[in-house]
């Protein structure tokens, strides 16, 4: 009985903290249509600032809290709204996700830069009132827990009063229903948006300060709070605050009671971390089908597709040029180049999925890991192992996409993130995958009797695979499937009214993309001679996606550049402690700046070359001129609401036209 009560209290504490975080997420999402992947990162930064003021500078607790909540968080919210969120509120989902993911990594980069981890100083924040407690039903309850629960109740009351009893709150609720209407009636939508981001940031900060004593002051734990908050908010379909609270409490209790589970260490530790993800998947499966929406953003600046002949010549020239360069590299750099190529191949899978299709996967590296693990399990040099690895990974990809195939981009992306986390906690750490010690050996493939044991020749093999895949991708892009991908991205509703069954099309695309990632994994295992779960952590998928986006996620050359970028940044960062945040600052900042142009750096580079040497034969990946008019204006007819990601249309206001 005592145990039950103390687990309940423990669960309620987490539930209350999640509720605060989740309602901030819901508030900003409903009023501005931006799903902020960096919501947890905000909590993380706020917790660091709190530590700085309270522990490092020795300010009294109350003063530090006031400063964080009423000076830091509002300023942060305003800057965020101005510099990032305002630019994404009308962007396609893919752009929105890449941009807020950029913010996510950027904040981690900032934290790493300001509060580097390799100092002798161990940072921690203790709970409020230390271990002081009072008795409840025969167990002791920390004051800290009580404070958290009270804070959650106060936030709920505050939100209720603000939304229902104030003018600006009414305007915010109107923004949920219909943003055009809001503007029509003269309400200042910018003010609504700024206020949302201020309050959202404050709530993230409160959650961060309350949780940091439990999670520890660390760059990642609190950052991934966004998954918990999202899981809780999904119970209210990202719209309902009461259901968000309910979801949070249920999640908290589940985490509390999971302490009952005893068994392997994997289960005990893994379960706690995996619970939010499991809950998320369960809810996603039961969310009703998203209705097709019309009147959305369409027409994205697209890179030109080179003709078959031009692609072929460029590919051949590239292959020999790269081979020549490889010959000049020392063994360490050859290995690094080999890694960059594996990343590049993984990014080709993202070109198909994200660049052409507009879907975002936040767990592409997990698929790479699956491919690597399968090849290792076979431990043979027969190419059949690679083939099987590709097929299995493609199957896993289909299985991930299936439950969410009724839903749209945002949900698919978050489901992949959840999937990656589950794999991290429950599969990659399990002994049946990589064994205890977490490393299994792989043999390099041999083809036609040639064994590629020399790394340079193996890199040549990778180059060949890259070029062939790139050519294949461009062939797809030029053909019917490529056109369909773009059409589906521009208007899913129109595709449906032409008779396309997009569920299966989407699963097929996702599955092929996962298969290509699996191929990259198989090559990686061969390159390194082993596979270890640490190399395929879910988190690493995020810099991967961003590097692809920054370099140019719509082109084959962008994938190559992205692979190099992703390989080089950590190498550079390792040269000096002063650069500890470099990788994430560059990738995150780059994604925020460039997300609106998915053709990325590579395209800017080509454009620059063209400007300098007008007749220069760049490989054909120059952006088309932007459409002169953004979109044919509507002659008459009422304005649509823009609820592209809302699972249901139970919204009063104006709609489908």
């Amino acid at each position, binding site marked *: 009985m005592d145990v039950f009560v103390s687990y309940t209290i423990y669960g309620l504490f987490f539930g209350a903290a999640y509720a605060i975080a989740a309602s901030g997420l819901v508030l900003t999402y409903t009023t501005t249509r931006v799903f902020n992947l960096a919501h947890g990162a905000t909590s993380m930064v706020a917790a660091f600032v709190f530590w700085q003021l309270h522990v490092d500078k020795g300010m009294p607790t109350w003063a530090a809290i006031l400063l964080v909540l009423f000076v830091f968080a509002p300023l942060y919210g305003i800057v965020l709204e101005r510099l990032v969120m305002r630019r994404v509120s009308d962007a396609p989902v893919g752009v929105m996700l890449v941009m807020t993911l950029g913010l996510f990594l950027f904040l981690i980069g900032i934290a790493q830069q300001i509060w580097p981890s390799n100092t002798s100083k161990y940072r921690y924040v203790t709970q409020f009132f230390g271990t002081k407690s009072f008795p409840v039903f025969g167990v002791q309850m920390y004051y800290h827990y009580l404070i958290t629960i009270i804070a959650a109740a106060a936030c709920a009351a505050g939100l209720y009063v603000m939304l229902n009893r104030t003018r600006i709150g009414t305007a915010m609720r109107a923004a949920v229903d219909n943003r055009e209407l809001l503007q029509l009636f003269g309400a200042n939508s910018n003010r609504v948006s700024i206020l949302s981001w201020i309050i959202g940031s404050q709530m993230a900060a409160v959650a961060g300060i309350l949780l940091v004593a439990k999670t520890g002051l660390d760059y990642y734990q609190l950052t991934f709070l966004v998954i918990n908050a999202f899981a809780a908010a999904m119970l209210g379909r990202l719209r309902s605050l009461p259901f968000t609270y309910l979801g949070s409490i249920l999640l908290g209790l589940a985490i509390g009671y999971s302490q009952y589970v005893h068994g392997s260490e994997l289960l005990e530790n893994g379960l706690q971390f995996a619970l939010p993800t499991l809950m998320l998947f369960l809810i996603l499966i039961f969310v009703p089908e998203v*209705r*097709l929406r*019309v*009147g959305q953003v*369409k*027409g*994205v*600046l*697209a890179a030109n597709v080179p003709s078959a002949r031009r692609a072929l010549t460029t590919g051949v020239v590239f292959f020999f040029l790269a081979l020549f360069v490889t010959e000049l590299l020392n063994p360490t750099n050859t290995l690094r180049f080999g890694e960059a190529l594996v990343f590049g191949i993984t990014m080709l899978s993202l070109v198909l999925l994200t660049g052409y299709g507009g879907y975002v996967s936040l767990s592409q590296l997990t698929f790479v890991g699956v491919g690597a693990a399968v090849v290792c399990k076979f431990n043979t040099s027969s190419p059949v192992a690679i083939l099987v690895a590709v097929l299995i990974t493609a199957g896993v990809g289909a299985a991930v996409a299936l439950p969410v195939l009724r839903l749209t981009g945002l949900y698919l992306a978050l489901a992949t993130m959840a999937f990656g986390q589950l794999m991290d906690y429950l599969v990659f750490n399990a002994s049946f995958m990589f064994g205890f010690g977490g490393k299994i050996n792989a043999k390099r493939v041999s083809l036609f009797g040639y064994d590629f044991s020399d790394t340079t020749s193996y890199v040549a093999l990778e180059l060949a695979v890259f070029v062939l895949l790139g050519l294949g991708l461009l062939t797809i892009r030029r*053909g*019917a*499937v490529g*056109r*369909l991908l*773009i*059409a589906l*991205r*521009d*208007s899913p*509703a*129109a*595709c*449906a*009214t*032409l*008779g*396309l*069954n*997009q569920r299966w099309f989407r699963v097929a695309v996702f599955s092929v993309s996962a298969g290509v990632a699996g191929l990259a994994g198989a090559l990686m295992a061969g390159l390194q001679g082993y596979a270890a779960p640490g190399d395929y952590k879910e988190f690493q998928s995020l810099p991967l996606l961003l590097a692809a986006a920054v370099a140019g996620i719509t082109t084959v050359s962008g994938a190559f550049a992205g692979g190099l970028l992703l390989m080089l940044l950590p190498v550079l960062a390792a040269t000096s402690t002063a650069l500890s945040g470099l990788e994430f600052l560059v990738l995150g900042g780059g994604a925020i700046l460039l997300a609106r142009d998915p053709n990325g750096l590579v395209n800017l580079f080509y454009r620059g070359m063209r400007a300098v040497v007008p007749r220069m034969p760049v490989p054909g990946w120059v952006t*088309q001129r932007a*459409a*002169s*008019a*953004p*979109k*044919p*204006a*509507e*002659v*008459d*007819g*009422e304005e*649509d609401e823009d609820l592209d990601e809302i699972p249901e*249309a*139970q*919204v*009063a206001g104006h*709609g*489908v*036209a």
Partner: protein
Amino acid sequence: MALLEAIGVTVRFGGITAVDDAFLSAEPGSITGLIGPNGAGKTTLFNVITGLQPPTKGRIRFKNHDVTRAPVDRRAKMGMGRTFQRLEAFGSLTVRENVQVARDVHAGARSWFGGRKDKRVGELIEIVGLDRYVNQRADSVPTGVARLLEVARALAIEPELLLLDEPSSGLDEAETESFGTLLQNLAREGCAILMVEHDMDLVMGVCELIHVLEFGKVIATGTPAQIRSNRAVQAAYLGFSDDSTTMQVPDDIAAAATAMLAAPNPTETTLSIPAVDGEG
């Protein structure tokens, strides 16, 4: 037996009843008009027919099948093609590619890996008269062109029923006229056309049958001549009805409505009446 029948369709959005117990039909080889003031529920009814909006009540029958619960793509495969009032052209594809996509979908997945040229694409573009624009991106062409593109795209799936949502807005007078001829040709070939249109000249000129929708209800069905002389329709366009719901209608709108319903006025090609409902 009609090709398409909407039977007692009702759609509610929260408190708003957008479509209220509406009945409607369309026959092969004939052009049917669906008119009514802004916000009358015409587009919503189209969405119900094509499956984008599940009805609160009522049924849709198409080719003697109850398709009320059939998904959008199945209805398209059965032979429904449509255009959108809020344009849904594939903005980052060219005009030609837009039509090509529709042909690809129509031909099915097996054809995607063949790479044969489909000469119907060029024909369709010619039929709607967009040869000049074939290689332009669909988000860079004028509204009228994009509308015609949507028509070509809908025709690409060889529909038996073609639903057009305000196809002529954005077209000039001459274009509207040739568009009318195009519709008549299509009908002659056996296609059933159901058209929402604010251009009364066009509607009165080409439609055999007209349904009038007001506040979600079908208040009249008849030939152009019958509709023109129908008192309820006149009232609907003037913005008030015989019963208690009296509304203020600005004089200019009332005048415009009368003018529109009167003998065809050659200079007035499009006219839309702002919704006059209690919203404001």
